[in-house]
Structures are given as structure tokens and as C-alpha cells.
């Protein structure tokens, strides 16, 4: 019965998008109301017999609610953005709700197309939107292949009936790559930075936080049907590790306000991909505690990433109105709530305690470094190497986030509070609640993890030790490690207050030292120049005239591939199918000759 409510809510969102004809604000208000209703449904437990649906629904609708409230104050792009915004949410809801392949695909395509229309709402974003659409269609094609295979082998389109299919590895692999394209994993990552940076910011938040979350949801859904063979996890680990490194390195040297968080999304999705691979390995070796912890980490990491990234995109959207380049930001005006949100979001993504990013990063590294429990040597080495790359990526993320803070939020001055701040306030309070009480989230998701792996996180992975009361310590396995984020938070507050109270508090403000000359400022281009210079080969850094040029070599690779395909097809068009009747007759005669030879057995190997 509860599923019927969800279908009605989908219709509610679709009608909200129709209302945009009248007024944008009505659309956003209706979608905010719908999202709040979804949050209530997810928390109230009426959907609790649907595996991972309540958890992902809760996460998505928190982002939807705050994005809708933010859009009430942000949107100045016209009615098309408002209606496609609501349509995107409707399609995503359909994806979450679907239990068969057909509605899943309808939702997937609807999400891609609606997002495409929303991204192209800006005048100069057509190319980025088109690349987004192309890769979106690639992911749909891969999903269709996978679902068609499943339908062929099990004769059913319902997910629940696919368990035990005899081509599961291939089915899973195709679906995995379909979801990987949407998560912007390595070799499919080039669409994300242009699409996210040229989209309007409420859409960017939606794309980055929820669209990529749909990829994670899809993979978790497939994993809960059946786990594939272990070699699939090697693919996931390697691709995910490279993705994390690439995303992090490019974020650290990015000079555009919205491109930096986009690359950070690529990095975080890479880490989630790695964790899903580690989950498969843990399940294969029947280590139920480790697999439960790894799945818990995947879910927590997805939660932290969506919330923090959406908040960062909100604040970046406010900054972007002053200049899209970090280097040229001057006299940025942000309200105090926006500045605080920017700080907290960026610090969370840089994995600074006590914020959720720190907890998620700790859990991820604990999950990866418990690979010593895996008996197989090559997978042990693989996981540890990828774990080192993940740690590197998390470290470099600090550079990009401090860049965002120092050049974006730190230099902002006051401005009145407006509706955009209400949207940010929702996410800010969720972040702070989760930093203080992550156990509540773990309890919320423990039932589906228990039914998947046989270990209930609420019982086995939350405990107490020494002075910490039972229920506040997160354990990363049997007798491995533990951390209590609640007490880290409390300890930090106590420590900071003590230091502040004891200090003399004499502050003198001076200019930056620049050799005594003019303009003593360390600008953002030189902040990351060390990275660009020492990793010259990776960025292909070049100095031309007075400018420095660097870029993503894979993007250039795609452009080169596209050009050579077009070149080849031009040659085909001009020289082979050139319109000359005589040549066509020659082709027909040759084909007839070869066919006769083949049929009558003229070829020695055909019998």
C-alpha cells in the first residue's frame, strides 16, 4: 500500500513541473512540500520492508528539499529550469521506487533528458549539455543491454526474479559500466566537469549529489540481488582508484568556482566505487563482519558526499554570480549563513573532524586496510595499493577545499539573509546532527545491511569501551578499530574553548608580505602552481607567452578520438561510397562473386 503513495508523489512532482507555466515559485514550493512528505515517509518506517529504499529516499529527499527551498531564492533563469527541475526529481523518484527493469529504465532516461534540458537553460552551456546527454545515453544503452540479458535468461523483468541467473557476471558487468558512466568513473569522467560547471547551481547540486547517487543505488541494488565473481571487484578497485586520484588532482588545480566541486565529485565517486569492489571481495571470502562494515561505509560515504557536495554547490552558486574564475573573485558578498555553510561544506569534504567527511573517510580507510583478513594474496595487495591511492586522494582534497575556502568564503563580506540561506540552513543542520550522532544513521540502515550480510551493525558495530558509554562508539570490525564521533565533537569543543579562554587574544592585522612591493597577494593560480609544475606530465602543463596552460589529457583523448572517427568516416564517404555508379556496380558484382564462391564450396575451409 505504501508504494502507492510514492507513485502519487511522483505524479505530484510532475504536476509541479506543469505549474511552472504559471510561476516558478509555485513549482519549487510544491516540490519542497513533496520532498518533506518523502522525508516523513522514509523516517516513519512505513517503507521498512523495501530493503535500501528508505535510506536512499531519506538521503535524496533531504537534498531535494533543500534544493527546492534554495531555488526559490536563486532561480533567475526562467520557467524552463523550474519545470525540468521538478521533472528530474520525479524521474529520480521513479528510479528509487521501481522494482522492475522497465520502470527503472523509464526513470533513468527521464532523469537524463530532464537534466539535459535543465543544464541547457543557460545560454552558453549547449555543448556541455550535449556531452552530458551523449554519456547519459551511453549509460542507458549499457543498462538496456544488461537488463535485456537478464530478461533473456530469467524471462522476467522484475529484479527479485533475477537471482540465480546463469549469466549474472555479464549482466552485472554491463549494468556496472552503465552505472559507472553515470558516476563519472575513469574513462567516462569527462562529461561531469563541464556539465556541472555550466549548469545553474540548483541543478548542479541536484546532479552532483543525487544523480551520482542513483549510480550508487543501482550498483547496491544489483549487489543485493546477487554478488558477481571476484574478478569484477578487481576491475572496480583499479578503475575506482584511478578515478579518485584523477578527480582529486584536477580539483586541486582547477581555477573555476564550479569546476572544483565537480572534480571533487569524481574523486568521491571513485572512492565509493573502490569500496563497492572491496565489499564484493569481503563477501566472496565469507567475512560477514567486514562485508557488513564495508557496505555500511558505502552508505555512510554516499550520505556524507551528497549532503556536503550539495551544500558546497549552493554556496559556490552564490559566489559564481560575482565571477566564474576563482582568481578573479573580488568583493564577494555572502550572508553569514552562506559563509558558515561554505566553510562547513568544504571542511567536511576535506575530511576534517568532527564533520561527517572525517567519519566517512575514517570508515573507508578502515574498511580497506582490514584487507589483511582476506586470504588471497593478490587481492590483499590490490586492496592495499588502492587504499594507499584513496588516502592520497583524500589528502590532496585538502588542497582543493582550502583553496575554495581561502579565495571564496574567507574574503566575503556581509549581505542580508534571503531564501537561499534557508535551503543552506537545512543541510547545515543535517551535517551538524550527523557529526554529533552518526549512530542514528547507522541504526536507520542496519536492517537492510543485516538482511544482506547477516551482521546487524546496530548490534555488532556499535559498542562502548573505556569511558565511552555503550552506543557511542563505532567499531570497524571484530577487535580492529573504533572511533566515537560524538566524543570527538565534544572534545574538540572543550579544547577549543579552553585554548580560546586562556589565550591573550591580542590580534594585529597586517598585509601579506610580498617583498615590500605592490599587491602582496598569493593568488589562487600560484597556490596550485607547485602541483601543476611537479606533475607536468600528468597535466601537460605548458607556458605560452605569459600564460600557463594545463588540462585533462583524457578530455583531449576523447576529442582526438571523435576527430579521427569523423576523419575516417569522411574518407569512407568521399572515396568508398563516392556516388559513382560504376564503383557501386563493382561492389555489387564483387559481393555476388564472393557469395557464390562461399555457397558452392569454392573456399577450401568451408564444407
Amino acid at each position, binding site marked *: 500500500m505504501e508504494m502507492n503513495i510514492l507513485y502519487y508523489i511522483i505524479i505530484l512532482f510532475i504536476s509541479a513541473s506543469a505549474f511552472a507555466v504559471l510561476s516558478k515559485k509555485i513549482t519549487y514550493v510544491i516540490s519542497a512540500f513533496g520532498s518533506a512528505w518523502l522525508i516523513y515517509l522514509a523516517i516513519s518506517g512505513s517503507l521498512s520492508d523495501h530493503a535500501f529504499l528508505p535510506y536512499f529516499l531519506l538521503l535524496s529527499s533531504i537534498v531535494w528539499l533543500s534544493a527546492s527551498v534554495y531555488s526559490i531564492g536563486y532561480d533567475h533563469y526562467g520557467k524552463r529550469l523550474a519545470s525540468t527541475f521538478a521533472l528530474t526529481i520525479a524521474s529520480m523518484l521513479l528510479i528509487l521506487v521501481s522494482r522492475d527493469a522497465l520502470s527503472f529504465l523509464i526513470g533513468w532516461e527521464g532523469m537524463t533528458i530532464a537534466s539535459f534540458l535543465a543544464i541547457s537553460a543557460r545560454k552558453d552551456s549547449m555543448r556541455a549539455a550535449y556531452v552530458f546527454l551523449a554519456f547519459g545515453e551511453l549509460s542507458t544503452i549499457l543498462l538496456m543491454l544488461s537488463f535485456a540479458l537478464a530478461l533473456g535468461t530469467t524471462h522476467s523483468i522484475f529484479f527479485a526474479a533475477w537471482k540465480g541467473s546463469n549469466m549474472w557476471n555479464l549482466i552485472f558487468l554491463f549494468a556496472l559500466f552503465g552505472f559507472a558512466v553515470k558516476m563519472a568513473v575513469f574513462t567516462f569522467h569527462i562529461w561531469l566537469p563541464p556539465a556541472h560547471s555550466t549548469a545553474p547551481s540548483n541543478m548542479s547540486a541536484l546532479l552532483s549529489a543525487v544523480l551520482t547517487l542513483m549510480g550508487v543505488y543501482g550498483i547496491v541494488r544489483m549487489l543485493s540481488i546477487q554478488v558477481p565473481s571476484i574478478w569484477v571487484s578487481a576491475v572496480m578497485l583499479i578503475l575506482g582508484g584511478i578515478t579518485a586520484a584523477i578527480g582529486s588532482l584536477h580539483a586541486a588545480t582547477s581555477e573555476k568556482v564550479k569546476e572544483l566541486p565537480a572534480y571533487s565529485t569524481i574523486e568521491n565517486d571513485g572512492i565509493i566505487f573502490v569500496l563497492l569492489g572491496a565489499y564484493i571481495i569481503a563477501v566472496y571470502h565469507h567475512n560477514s563482519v567486514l562485508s557488513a562494515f564495508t557496505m555500511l561505509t558505502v552508505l555512510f560515504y554516499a550520505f556524507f558526499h551528497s549532503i556536503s557536495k550539495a551544500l558546497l554547490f549552493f554556496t559556490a552558486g552564490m559566489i559564481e554570480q560575482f565571477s566564474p574564475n576563482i582568481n578573479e573573485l573580488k568583493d564577494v558578498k555572502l550572508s553569514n549563513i552562506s559563509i558558515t555553510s561554505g566553510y562547513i561544506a568544504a571542511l567536511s569534504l576535506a575530511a576534517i573532524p568532527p564533520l561527517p567527511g572525517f567519519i566517512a573517510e575514517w570508515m573507508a580507510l578502515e574498511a580497506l586496510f582490514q584487507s589483511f583478513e582476506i586470504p588471497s594474496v593478490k587481492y590483499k595487495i590490490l586492496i592495499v595499493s588502492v587504499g594507499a591511492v584513496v588516502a592520497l586522494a583524500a589528502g590532496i582534497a585538502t588542497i582543493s577545499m582550502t583553496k575554495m575556502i581561502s579565495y571564496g568564503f574567507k574574503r566575503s563580506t556581509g549581505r542580508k539573509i534571503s531564501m537561499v540561506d534557508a535551503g543552506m540552513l537545512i543541510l547545515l543542520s543535517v551535517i551538524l546532527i550527523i557529526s554529533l550522532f552518526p549512530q542514528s544513521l547507522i541504526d536507520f540502515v542496519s536492517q537492510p545491511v543485516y538482511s544482506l550480510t547477516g551482521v546487524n551493525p546496530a548490534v555488532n558495530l556499535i559498542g562502548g569501551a573505556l569511558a565511552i558509554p555503550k552506543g557511542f562508539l563505532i567499531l570497524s570490525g571484530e577487535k580492529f578499530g573504533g572511533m566515537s564521533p560524538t566524543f570527538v565533537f565534544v572534545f574538540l569543543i572543550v579544547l577549543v574553548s579552553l585554548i580560546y579562554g586562556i589565550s591573550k587574544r591580542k590580534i*594585529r592585522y*597586517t*598585509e601579506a*608580505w610580498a617583498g*615590500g612591493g605592490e599587491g602582496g597577494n598569493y593568488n589562487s593560480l600560484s597556490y596550485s602552481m607547485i602541483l601543476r609544475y611537479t606533475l607536468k606530465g600528468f597535466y601537460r602543463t605548458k607556458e605560452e607567452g605569459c600564460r600557463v596552460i594545463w588540462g585533462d589529457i583524457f578530455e583531449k583523448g576523447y576529442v582526438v578520438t571523435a576527430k579521427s572517427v569523423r576523419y575516417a568516416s569522411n574518407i569512407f564517404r568521399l572515396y568508398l561510397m563516392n556516388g559513382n555508379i560504376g564503383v557501386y556496380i563493382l561492389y555489387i558484382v564483387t559481393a555476388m562473386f564472393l557469395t557464390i564462391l562461399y555457397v558452392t564450396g569454392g573456399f577450401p575451409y568451408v564444407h
Partner: protein
Amino acid sequence: MWVIKGLRKGIITTKYPDEKPTKDEVPEIGVPVHRHGDIKAASGVCPTDAISEALDFYKCIFCQRCEDYGFEMTGNVEIAEVNRKLPFSGSVHIFLVDAGSCNACNRELDMLTNPYYDLHRLGFFFTPTPRHADIMFVIGKVTDRMVEPMLKAYEAMPEPKIVVAAGSCATSGGIFGNEGVDRYINVDAKISGCPPSPIGLLYGLLKTYRRR
């Protein structure tokens, strides 16, 4: 091979300030000291007007013209005055501001880090940024364009900080004028000489410690 050479040579660092400076460490010219005769007669011959009632050591440039008028060139180079000391000793960082010198003071300062004088054993270090500095060491006659960088460097230094002016150009303008660094900023210590010999510099720097 240089290890064996070094071991054979032994320790060459000077024992100053624990012992008095030897004859080799003192420049041959020395500082003029009035022995006999009327000091007023010599006041016209000094190019920097250092001689009036007594010899102003901070203006003297050692041209030796006053030798004929009853001055004797001695070897005492330990002439420095300190108004304000640093509240600590050991690990003192010096930021050098060359406000337009002839580079002679620079060379003498360079000699302080060679193995013979070895500034580091006394706890002084040079730093390239004022943010880490305790002493701003000014040499040279402050030219117009160096006023602003010098003041900005002082502004960029954290408390506690002192300004040391070394050489006759910095302390009193030398042959270039009548005013030294104290025209622009409060000078806490002065070291005389043109250029100040390494022993003189060490003497002045050691006086800025709290202990001496």
C-alpha cells in the same frame, strides 16, 4: 680526503666572545682615538663632520685624514650601543634589509656565517622572510624607494622585534647625509664601522641579548 684534511686542521672557529679578539681579527686600520692636540683643529678635515667635541664613532668612515691631527688608529672595533634588548636569547632570527648600501656591509655580514666566525653557535640565524624574524637589520643609506619596503617589512614582523642599524650610513647617514635610519623608524641598536668588522657585528648582536 677533505675529512682527513679537516681533522688535521682542527677547529678554526674563533673563541670570541669568550676571549678577546686576536690581532688577526681586528682590521689593520682600526678606530681613530684622540691622543694629543686640539680636537677642534681636526674638525674641518673630517669629510663626514664626525669631529666636534669628540669623535662620533657612528659617523666615522675610516678615511684616516685625522691621523695627522693627533688621532691614533687603534684596534678597538667593539663599539655599539643598544637601547632596547630582546626579551630572550638563543634562536634569534635576523631579517636583513639592505636599504641602498655599497655592499661592503653585506660582505662583512656574509663573513659571519663562515666557519671562522660562525654566527650560528651564538644562536643567531638569518631568515629570508620578516614573518619569522626577531631583528630587522638595516644597512646602507635609506634611499627614497627603499623607505616603503623597509617599513612594510617592519610591519610584517611579529612582536617582540627590534631594529638594528649597522654601519655609518645606516646609523648616521655617513658620507651621504646627516640622518640615518632613525629618521624613519625607531632604532633600538647601533653598530659602528665602515664597514663594521665581523667582530664588531658580533659584539653588537650579542649586546641585544637579554643576558649581556
